[in-house]
């Protein structure tokens, strides 16, 4: 079967399907661009931070920035996002502050998750951005539950969940899609097909020509979209959201893109793939394409670009300095918090034991 690859822009930022062009206000268009660029610039700096040994782990999204922002910009703030570990642009688009992001990477005293999670596992409840889990795919049925909860409580909010094409091989993907379709849950499944699951190529994940076509078996629409085209992503997501809000159920969107960098800071792709492959994808860059589109519309100039990059350099330097000045360790007493809603007696006992041991043998802030 042949699915059309939905596009709005070509690689040079020309509109090739004007009827699909979302009519965003200039400020909105600039925000989409700026968020994608922010992800790119941050990734460069933060991977360097990891290489310097200042953070333990990092995960870049070079070349996939449109998949973060395109779907998210089609949502309302009250809609829920269940992201995997490679869609930080979704949280940034909603206003996740740089300084807080950095505190999470350091796991320091002002890390909102209190030094408990690996870097990039953000949790931003006030932005309806759900705590990121490491196990692949577990967020998929959870998003279905959140979507069902919205309907049960009479709200027309939707849930959008991201996962990679590797995640589509999990049982959780099948279960989530099937459940959502049966129950007409207002969910948007965004499969970020970036070609590689660590070292496993897309051809080993599925024998199907597309991931989008899997939707047919579940009884929901499946859309194949150019994952490097933020406008096409926004357009297909907007359609999916409208269906979901009306009560017409879920949609599976395959965003076809490419992971130009390593899986994570712990990975070296040169040992398993031809370096010509990522280079080839540079010509399909989502940010460059969007910049040309913006410039053609008269909403972005070279001066804007220079100003934005300059502001980023200053903001980043300031946020980094502030985050590194924060006490490196969350208060010891927090270690036993949040395991249960109230601290049970046995954890209270462990806290006392640890404190008395440290009082006896260590400096107070050990």
């Amino acid at each position, binding site marked *: 079967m042949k699915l059309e690859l939905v596009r709005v822009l070509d690689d040079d930022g020309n509109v090739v399907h004007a009827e699909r062009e979302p009519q965003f206000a200039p400020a909105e268009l600039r925000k989409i661009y700026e968020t994608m660029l922010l992800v790119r610039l941050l990734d460069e700096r933060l991977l360097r931070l990891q290489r310097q040994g200042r953070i333990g782990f990092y995960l870049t999204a070079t070349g996939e920035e449109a998949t973060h922002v395109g779907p998210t910009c089609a949502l309302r703030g009250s809609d*829920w996002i*269940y992201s995997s570990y490679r869609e930080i642009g979704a949280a940034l688009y909603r206003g996740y502050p740089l300084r807080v992001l950095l505190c999470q990477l350091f796991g320091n005293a002002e*890390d*909102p*998750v*209190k030094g*408990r*999670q690996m870097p990039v*596992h953000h*949790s*931003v*409840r006030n932005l309806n951005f*759900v*705590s990121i*889990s*490491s*196990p692949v795919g*577990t967020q*998929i*049925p*959870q*998003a*279905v*539950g*959140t*979507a*069902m*909860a*919205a309907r*049960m*409580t009479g709200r027309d909010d939707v*849930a959008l969940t991201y996962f990679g094409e590797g995640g589509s091989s999990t*049982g*959780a993907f099948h*279960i*989530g899609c*099937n*459940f959502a379709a*049966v*129950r007409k849950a207002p969910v948007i499944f965004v499969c970020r097909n970036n070609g590689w699951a660590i070292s496993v190529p897309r051809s080993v994940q599925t024998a199907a020509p597309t991931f989008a076509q899997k939707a047919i078996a579940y009884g929901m629409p499946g859309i194949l979209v150019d994952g490097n085209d933020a406008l096409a992503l926004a357009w297909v997501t907007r359609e999916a959201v409208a269906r979901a809000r009306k009560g017409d159920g879920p949609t599976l969107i395959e965003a076809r893109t490419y992971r130009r960098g390593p899986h994570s800071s712990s990975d070296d792709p040169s040992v398993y793939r031809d370096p010509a492959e990522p280079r080839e994808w540079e010509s399909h860059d989502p940010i460059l394409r969007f910049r040309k589109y913006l410039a053609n519309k008269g909403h972005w100039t070279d001066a804007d670009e220079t100003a934005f990059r300059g502001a980023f350099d200053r903001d980043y330097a300031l946020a980094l300095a502030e985050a590194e000045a924060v006490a490196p360790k969350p208060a010891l007493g927090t270690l036993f*918090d*949040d*395991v*249960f*809603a109230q601290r*049970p*007696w*046995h954890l209270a006992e462990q806290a006392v034991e640890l404190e008395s041991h440290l009082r006896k043998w260590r400096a107070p802030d050990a």
Partner: protein
Amino acid sequence: MPTVSYREALNQAMAEEMEGDPNVFLMGEEVGYYNGAYKVSQGLLARFGEKRVIDTPIAEGGFVGVGIGAAMVGLRPIIELMTWNFSLVAADQIINNAAKIRQMSGGQFTLPVVFRGPGGSAHQLAAQHSQSTEAFWTHVPGLKVVMPSTPKDAKGLLKSCIRDNNPIVFIEGEVLYGDQGEIPEGEYTIPIGVGEIKRVGTDVTIIGWSKMAKVALETATLLAEQGISAEVVDPRTLRPLDEELIVSSVKKTGRCVILEEGWPYNGVGAEIAYRVARLCFDDLDHPVERLTGNDLPMPYNRKLEHHCVPDAERAAELVRKVLYLD
């Protein structure tokens, strides 16, 4: 006081809590039109409708995950597992997500969700349908594990669990559903983490939960005929454990026998035995003893199965041993 079955007691608990809080709903395989594989949800669909009593596709990993997603945004799901034997495909959701999301999110998300269903062996259901899974769940920080043995406890504890703001593993005794017992008139709850002395005695403490609390009581009756006074302690909640109650009983009797239906290796009884050994060291007149299921997958054959489940005769023999009578 009205007399009801264990099954009806659970049903009343759910119905009352659903009546009292519109955020409570029930979801699982066959819970709606079929009224539950064990009829625990009898009549709830008719009373509360399809929006709050939800039949699901056969996928524990799915409806457990869906329940987690609903709980994270403020609902209070009761997720029925047809049996805890089938919960293992949902272990990723229960252990990696439900038990950790509050802690991993720095307390941003809370998970008021009850996972409930029957556990333990019934009759000739063999290796994959007869497991006692409580040792798995009690191992995990972030989960509370509750196992009532009587209709009164079942109702009072389930109501407390539905109101609790933590993920709860609520394991019902598959062979207890038909048991009759008195329950208090009207509204009542029983706190999580509080055990109960089911029979007062002086010579030995027998500890058992769920079906094993019943076996402990039968053992005490047998022993009474032999002039031995056994105290029966039912912890009712395995995590958090009512250590104080267990310790005060053992300090009084000086002897402790633990009955556990599950496997011996790293069983819940092993944890209790450690606590008793540590906290009652000077009061014990005999090392703590355990009677457990055999360390093997449950056989189907009726007579073989019988040898794998602790019973009152064998428990009484063990008690005589700790009293140095044999």
